[in-house]
């Protein structure tokens, strides 16, 4: 069971908003300071470890840039959206950000609500309203990567890439 304080975002939140182009060549730490700087300045100072993002339709549309890594580094514990862009979802798997589709989630949560996510039973509950929604199951092998820190540790274990500082 994971509980996160909800930050609400709308439909079609694109990768350029999470990782603005001018930051592409910066360090991952610097990139994480730029999340939502154009649509929600100051958010990175407010978000806390374990918080949840609740998004609308087509969350993460746009480019292949590692926006999911920036969210994880900001402390986002999990992300739920009406639908998630396929490329952003891949990066969520690969960078170890728990991200699930959950139809109805945008209407069920207000900003600041707690979201209680249960990935044993694939449901999310809003304690304020008492409402429980079904969360779409992430396939087993992809969930293992999401929860295991992404694909880098897998490739390191198999001796295909060197560890970060090697």
């Amino acid at each position, binding site marked *: 069971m994971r509980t996160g304080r909800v930050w609400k975002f709308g439909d079609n939140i694109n990768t350029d908003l999470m990782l603005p182009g001018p930051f592409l060549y910066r360090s991952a730490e610097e990139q994480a300071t730029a999340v939502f700087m154009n649509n929600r300045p100051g958010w990175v100072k407010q978000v806390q470890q374990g918080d949840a993002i609740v998004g609308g*339709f087509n969350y993460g549309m746009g480019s292949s840039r590692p926006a999911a890594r920036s969210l994880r580094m900001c402390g986002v514990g999990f992300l739920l959206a009406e639908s998630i862009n*396929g*490329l952003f979802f*891949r990066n969520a798997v690969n960078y170890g950000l728990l991200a699930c589709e959950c139809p109805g989630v945008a209407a069920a949560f207000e900003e600041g609500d707690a979201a209680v996510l249960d990935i044993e039973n694939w449901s999310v509950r809003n304690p304020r309203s008492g409402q429980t929604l079904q969360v779409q199951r992430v396939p087993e092998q992809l969930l293992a990567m999401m929860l295991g820190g992404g694909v880098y540790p897998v*490739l390191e274990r198999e001796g295909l890439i060197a560890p970060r500082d090697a």
Partner: protein
Amino acid sequence: MGMTITEKILARAGGLPKVSPGDVAVVDVETACLIDLSFLPEGWRNVLQVADPSKVVIVFDHLVPAPTADAANCMRTGREFAKKFGIQRLHDIGADQGISHAVIADKAYALPGTVLVNADSHTCSAGAFNCAARGVGGPDMLYAVTTGKAWFRVGETIRYDLTGRLRPGVSAKDIFLFIAGKWGAHVNQNIEYGGPGMASMSLNARRTLTTMGTELSAEFVIFEPDDTLVEYVKARNPKPFTPTLPDADAGYKERRTIDLGTIEPLVALPDAVVNNSVGISEVAGRHIDQAFIGACCNGTLDDLAVAARVVKGRKVAAGTRFIVTPSTEAIHRAAMAAGYVATLMEAGAIVTPATCGACVGGHMGVLGPDEVCITASTRNFKGRMGDPSARIYMASPATVAASALAGQIASAAEFFQGDVS
């Protein structure tokens, strides 16, 4: 029930009898393309093993030639990686360089019936080649290069049957803007194009349409194969391939018919590509500071020919910047040989080296605060081409060129009067 084109290719590449929506398929990757951004220090790692160097392509495209030391450093890492593993298909700055999707098309690296991955999001471009191609993240590329494999969630497929043919002055970009305006995003869905209308579309036009499929948030975007495609690929790539048609009883989420003859030139308003298209008359007359034609989707020889035709013997409006970026250096040379570059330059345009450049807000055409641009490139997101207060309209190369002459958004119709479709 039978399979769609994408399902058949994924099943074959995965050694599976069948795949269906909802499955996760782990498949063999025939072509894995790395770009300069793949070698960013934060994402790239010291690779210890490459599954098959002959299946790897490296193209430097996003910021080329390097405008910064950081960009130069990425390419340095890429060259060292190519050398270490004997990767032959390295498209470094020079005659064979270009935007990766267009180089892949020029060289016919995308083989019909196979799987291709690339670190750039507009990879579904190669779907015009009947190739299951998808943009993936940097870590996916490390996985593909080291293991030779990739995983895909199999989505449902929307089938578009194209009929008729485009009228003069209307282009594949307008077909895209029509689809984006009428049906919006295709999240987690595949798109399949076929039907009698595709025969009248050049491979370049098909590639504009597949490339823009990224902006529909589609998974795979793929055309049926035809003789035009098969001959093009055979002439350029000696590897064997299997053109792949859908099964007659393929299962589609929906089937939609588009009569190409009914498509009008359209413009996408700033900040979003989908559900944002309007007719030119709605925005005609709005001032522009810059007009841009380029990127992976609209820097083809056909696009440069249209732009040259519109501006031939005319002048870009005073105070308007008209920037044209061919998608590859090979296209650049062909456009010079055909006289398009001279025509564009005489009209007052500048023609840049091949790069993602202005489209990605990188260099050679970045927008300042409150500036207005009309672009035939891939995206018009807020801040995409520079300052977040800049306004970006998206249209076809013909509309962009006509707008450059007018200094305001303008229809290109007058330049195509009397043409027969």
